Structure formats: C-alpha cells, structure tokens
C-alpha cells in the first residue's frame, strides 16, 4: 500500500504510525469509492432512458444505505479514538525527558534556519523576547553565564544516532520558533512538521532510526524566498561524528551573527 500511495522513505519511529493512519483511511476511501462507483456505473446503464422509459416514483424502498453511512461513521470513529487521538497525545503531550534527549532550538528567519545547542553545560542561556535584536536572534541574556557556551549554527543540524538505556533510539527535541514571519519546519522522511510562529517557542520530538542527511523543508509561505529556503539539512550520524562536529563548533556562541 505504501508503494501504491507513493509514500516517501521513512526514517523515524513515530513516522510508522503516521503512515499507517494514512493507509487505513485510504483503505476506507478506496472501499467507498470503488463500491459507489460500481453501483453508479450499473445504475447509469440499467436505468438509462432507452432501457427504462418510465421512472418508478418510489425508487429504492429499503434503507440499507443507512447502514453504509453508519459504517462510515463507525470506521471514522474507531480511527479517531484508537489511532489519531492517542498518537497525537503522545506527540504533543508526552515528551521524553530532556536529560535523555538531544535538545535543540531552531529559530526560522527569511530564508534560513538558525540552530542553537545548549553547549557543554547542557543548559541554554536565559532568553527573553526583549533581548532580541537583529543579531541576537534568540534573545539570549548577554550576561547569563549559561549562555556563554551555547553553540549556534546556520542551516545545519546534527543529531547522534544512539540507543538510550531503555533500548530506544535517543529522542531529539526541537524547540521551534521564528524571528520574522510564519515558517514551517518540515522534514519529510522523519514525518515532522511544526509551524514556526513568531512569539511562540513550540517543541516537537522524534526518534531517528537511521543515519543520513535529511532535507529540511519550509512548508509555510514566508515571502518571495519561500521556494528557495532549502539550504537547511538535518544530519543523523554516529555519536563520534556528532561529538566531533559539536566540538568543532563550541565557542562560536558568544558572537550572535
């Protein structure tokens, strides 16, 4: 079915369920569509003028159709209660503990992605909107020590692919925001989409399941450069490579260009 629908490659753990939900619904759609279409074609042939010159005032007298409608309602209800709602709840209300995860901040701008890591101390510097200036994108309090070692990059996100103690891949939590207009942080293969809304810092999380260099899309019209806001990549790599990369960045934080 994935093939049939042409779903793109998948590289995250929760993505499986996203795809499944899409597939379930399409089964429902196909059944309805084909079923009705068959009936439709049959009636058009059988009751065409030339074959059936006098119409029947009453037409269908039973209400079997009510059962179809009830069935549709039922399936939708089941999908809603059993799949859509619980998984959404997991996605937005049950975040893994930050200590167990790679925590990153992303602030979108026209037309690029600013990325920020907490640095060695694992703590982000204090932030407040009134610190925001042209070059202090994240509004970091300049005289907060915790902010000093924060790492900042542009269009370049790296995350390690390691298993946690609990045997699952280490989750990645990304706090997404924007400094100018609404963008949308979308990574197709990871089945991640979160609008980047100025004034809100919204987290989203996922568990990558394989290494690779993933395209970051901007999915919300954000100006005349929207179509070319495609330089951002998220690299999933081995812990060693990740640490090496992070080390090479450290210290770059203090200057916020």
């Amino acid at each position, binding site marked *: 079915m994935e093939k049939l629908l042409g779903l793109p490659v998948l590289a995250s753990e929760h993505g499986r369920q996203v795809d499944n939900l*899409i597939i379930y619904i399409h089964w429902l759609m196909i059944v309805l569509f084909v079923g*009705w279409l068959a*009936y439709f074609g049959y009636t*058009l042939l059988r009751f065409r003028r030339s074959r059936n010159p006098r119409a029947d005032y009453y*037409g269908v007298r039973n209400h079997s159709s009510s059962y179809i409608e009830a069935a549709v309602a039922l399936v*939708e209800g089941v999908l809603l209660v059993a799949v859509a709602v619980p998984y959404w709840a997991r996605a937005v209300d049950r975040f893994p503990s930050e200590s167990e995860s790679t925590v990153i901040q992303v602030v979108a701008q026209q037309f690029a992605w600013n990325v920020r890591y907490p640095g060695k101390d694992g703590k982000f510097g204090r932030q407040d909107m009134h610190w925001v200036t042209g070059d202090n994108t994240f509004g970091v309090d300049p005289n907060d020590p915790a902010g000093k070692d924060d790492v900042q990059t542009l269009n370049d996100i790296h995350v390690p692919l390691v298993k946690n103690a609990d045997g699952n891949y280490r989750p990645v939590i990304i706090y997404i925001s924007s400094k100018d207009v609404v963008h949308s942080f979308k990574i197709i293969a990871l089945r991640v989409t979160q609008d980047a809304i100025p004034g809100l810092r919204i987290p989203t999380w996922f568990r990558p399941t394989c290494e690779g260099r993933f395209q970051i899309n901007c999915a919300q019209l954000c100006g005349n450069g*929207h179509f070319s806001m495609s330089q951002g990549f998220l690299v999933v790599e081995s812990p060693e490579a990740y640490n090496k990369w992070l080390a090479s960045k450290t210290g770059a934080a203090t200057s916020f260009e």
Partner: protein
Amino acid sequence: MKHDKEAGFWTKYIFSTDHKMIGIQYGMTAFCFLLFGFCLMLVMRWQIAHSGQPVPVIGPLLEALLGNVAAKGVISPDLYNSFGAMHGTIMVFLAIVPLAFGAFGNYLVPLQIGAPDMAFPRVNMASYQFYFLGGIVMFVSFFIPGGAAQAGWTSYPPLAVAVPTDGQTFWLVGMVLLITSSLLGAVNFIATVIQLRAPGMNWMRLPFFVWAQFVTAFLLLLAFPPLEAAGIMQLMDKVAHTSFFLPTGLAVGGQLAQVSGGGSPLLWQHLFWFLAHPEVYVLILPAMGIVAEIIANNTRKPIWGYKSLVYSVLTIGFLSFIVWAHHMYLTGMGTKIATFFQTTTMIISIPSVIILTCMFISLWGGSIRFNPPMLFVMAFLPMFGIGGLTGLPLGFSYSDIHLHDTYYVIAHFHYIVAPGTIFAMFAGLYYWFPKFTGRMMNDFWGKVHFWTSFLFMNLIFQPMFAQGMAGMLRRMADGGANYSTAKTPGAIGGLSPNIIGLHTYILWAAVALLIAQIPFLINLFWSIKHGPKVSSDNPWEATTLEWQTPTPPPHGNFLEPVKVYRGPYEYSVPGAVRDYSPQNEPPGRGSGPKTLESGLEHAQGGVR
C-alpha cells in the same frame, strides 16, 4: 411587461433592481473573473513547469503591464506569489461565490418560492455594486507599484503586514467591500425565503436548491463579520502600525520591527478560518442544490430522501462553524483542542456522505436522460466524492503531519471546487439557459465541452495527489525544483525526477482545459442570439415554479398569484397522466391526488 417598457437602458441593465437582471449581472462578472483566475493559474503552471523561462505568447505583455516583476517575460517569485494569492482570492470571492450565490441564487430563489422579487430590491442592487467595486479594487491592485497581495489568499501575518507593497492594503479594502456585498446579499436572501414564500409553499415543499441557498446565506451572514473584524485589524496593522498580529521581538530583515508588539499571529488565523471553513461550504452547497434539481428532473423521479437531505444540509451549516481549526493542526495544538476539532471534522463529513448517498440512490429506478446538464451533474458526484474523501486524511491531525501544505491539499479542494462546483455551475447554465434567454443551447457542443473538460480536469488534478504524497509543497515559485534530488544530491527526502516531471503534463492538460472552453463560449454566445427558440415555458418538463412563468420571466415574475399544492419533485406520480406534476397545479387535473406528497415521505423512509 409594462415595467420593462417604462425602464430605459440604464435603469433596465445597469441600475436595475430586478433580481433577474442583477442575477445576470452577477453571472457575467463572475464568469469573467473565473476565466481571469484561470488565466493567472495558467501562467503560474508555466512557471512551475519551466521556472525561469519567459512565458510564451503573453510574456512580453506581462512585462509591459506589470513592469520588472515580469522582467523579460519571466515570472519573478514575487509575481508568482501575487498570482497565487489572487488566484485563490478571485476564484473564491469573485468567481464562484458570486456565481453560485449571487447569480444562480438571485435569479432562481425568488422564482422557485413563487415570489415577485427579492424582499429588498434596492439592497440587492447595492450588493452587486459593492461586489463590483470590490472586484475593481482587487483588479487594480495588480497594476500598482509592487503588484497585488503576495501573502496567499490566507494573508497570514506577520508576512502580510511585512511585505513592503500596498497590494495587501488593496486586498484588505477589497475584502471589506466584498464582505459588505455578501452581508447585504445574505440578509436579502434569508428575508426573502422567510417572508416571500408563496401560499402553500411551506418549508418542506421548498426545492432543495432553495434550502441550500438559505443555509449558504446564513453561513455568509454569520461567518463573514469575524473576517471583517480581522481585516480591519490587519488594516490597522498596515496603515496605523498597530500590533494586533505582531508579537514582541519581531525582527524582519535583520533589524527590529518598529512596533509595540504584544499581538498574536495566531489570532488572525483563528478569525480567518472561522470564516474560511464555512466559506468552503458556501462554495459547495449551492452546487449541491443545482445537482439535486437536475437529478430529479432528468431521472424523472423524486429525489430520494428529501428530508434527510434537508437535515443534512442544516447540520453541515451548523457544524461548519466549529471545525475551523482543522486548518491549524500544526500551529501547535494540545491534545484537548485537537481532539475537539478532529471530532467535529469527522462528524461534519457524515452529512456530506448522506447527501451524496441520497443523490446516488435517487438514480435507482429513474429513467435517466443524458443531456449536457445531466452529464455535468453525473461527473459532479464522483468528483466531489474524490475531493471529499481526500478531506478525511487531512481531517486527522496525525496524518495531516505528512500532508499539511502539500499538493495533496491542493488536489483535495480543487477536486471539490473545480470538477465539482464549476461543473455544477456549467450544469446549471445549460439547464436554466432556456429560462434565462428563451432559447436552447446546442446539445452536441455541450457534450463536447463536457467530455473534454472532464478529461482534462482529471489530468490536471489527479497527478497532484501523487506529488502531494511524495511531499511536494504548495506555493513553490519553482514547483519544488529546489527540493528535487537533482538540486540536493545525497540528501534524503528530495523530490524524484518523475514527480517533478508531472508538472509538464499538468501544464499541457491545463492549456487543453482552456481550449476545451472555447466550444462552450461559442455555444453560449451563439445560442443567445441564434439558439432554437423553446417550444414551451417548460422545455425540460420540470415541476418547480421557475418553469411555470413566461420565458424569460417578466418584471414581477408571475402573471397571476401562485398557489402551491405539492412537494418540489413530484415526477412520475402513479396515476398521473403526465410524468411530472408542477407544484402549482391544482390536485385532480391529471397530476394525481395531492396526498401523494406523503408517498414521498414513505419513499425516503420515516426513519431519518
């Protein structure tokens, strides 16, 4: 008629207060905008398929008219965004709504309920004039420096406010005018249906078309004002530099925006979608009304389940006010609110299922005539089916994660509005043309128009599902080339060449679709003058009241007061001589006993 003779050219054609003339004015204007909106899209499709290459034929023209946004006839991203935003705006607010509601509604509702005119003829005229004015403002905005609005038809701030041109201001002013027009229209429709129903035309004898228009009017009446409020606020943000939708710490283009901040971008989205979801039902309900009329007439039998149709359309009307945030799943929604909106979204799909089911079942036992109107209607059903069904995966926030803002969404709603609503509009035109003009349109060319349009519509929109599934995003000035595997070697999640390649086919299908309209246009204008004259006032042998008037109906519509004796779709009544019993035909006279209306009840089964 007496009145018409008195009336001179201006009072008759330009400042007419006759609902029929106003309907025709609406229709003409709206059709032109429909064509215009389509042409914008053709240019965009070229740019998508061959981004960066000058547009053939009209390229130089564009440059001459619009200046360096179309330098050397190449569509710049800014121009692409303008066209995209205006295509959406024009199609929704200036083409389909005026056509479905303003034109067909205006012309037919008073006739079908047996009224001499709208309740407030002068208000009706004002409504058209506001619409026209709004259209002008929108149109002019293309030619001002910087061009028309660029922030999509959804005009999300801060972008809408940040774009440094006046296009957005024009857009907002235009919207306020259009909203005023719709409000006046809505008040008029509702008052007319409530007050001017002919004696005997009780609620359950209204043609389904009137019900659809009635609910539509309520949607316009109550859903538009919040957008008007939002529009006023965005206007303030733009001209008075307030911060309704601008949060603190906004840094557009490097330096801090000179505003107080403290606003919320999401506020706009809520107010916008509070309108825009009901709006989409405004686009479909009148179409469904037309479909019901034509099915009943061309199957020669009553619509199956009239009552459940009426209740469904009322339910849709009610629910459509509380599903809006399904357009905002990915703006950051907690479980509770998401659950609420997913639930309502799923519930609202059921009445649509019921409506379509009733339409399908109505065919059973009929004696189906395949004339152009019926063909378009027969296409409407599955096309709406596809569009509607593909709404379901979007309706779940969890699957929307993958589909949001992809071409899957584009395909979803275009299947409903283009081969859906537009086809219903064509059907309505072919069907009521004899009533409008007293002449028939050509059958053969009608069928040519249908088959070609049907084919090319599907060739245009079917591939978009595939593109959307593969993750191609909307509003990409280069059709997603920047995200293609070609551009980003080694990256996972790029668009494969054959997905990108579909653009070319879509482009040519779209061009072909335009060409397919030529027979229609010729047929239309030729028939106005030279079409065969109708032999009777009721060429389709229909039951509803609009066919019981002279052709075309005079000022004041009916020659003598109307009285209604039966339901709207009394076709093939057992015991009747003719296979249709007009609503205003007294019982007995060969039309069977009037009690047969209860037969209708029985037919659709008391259960619902």
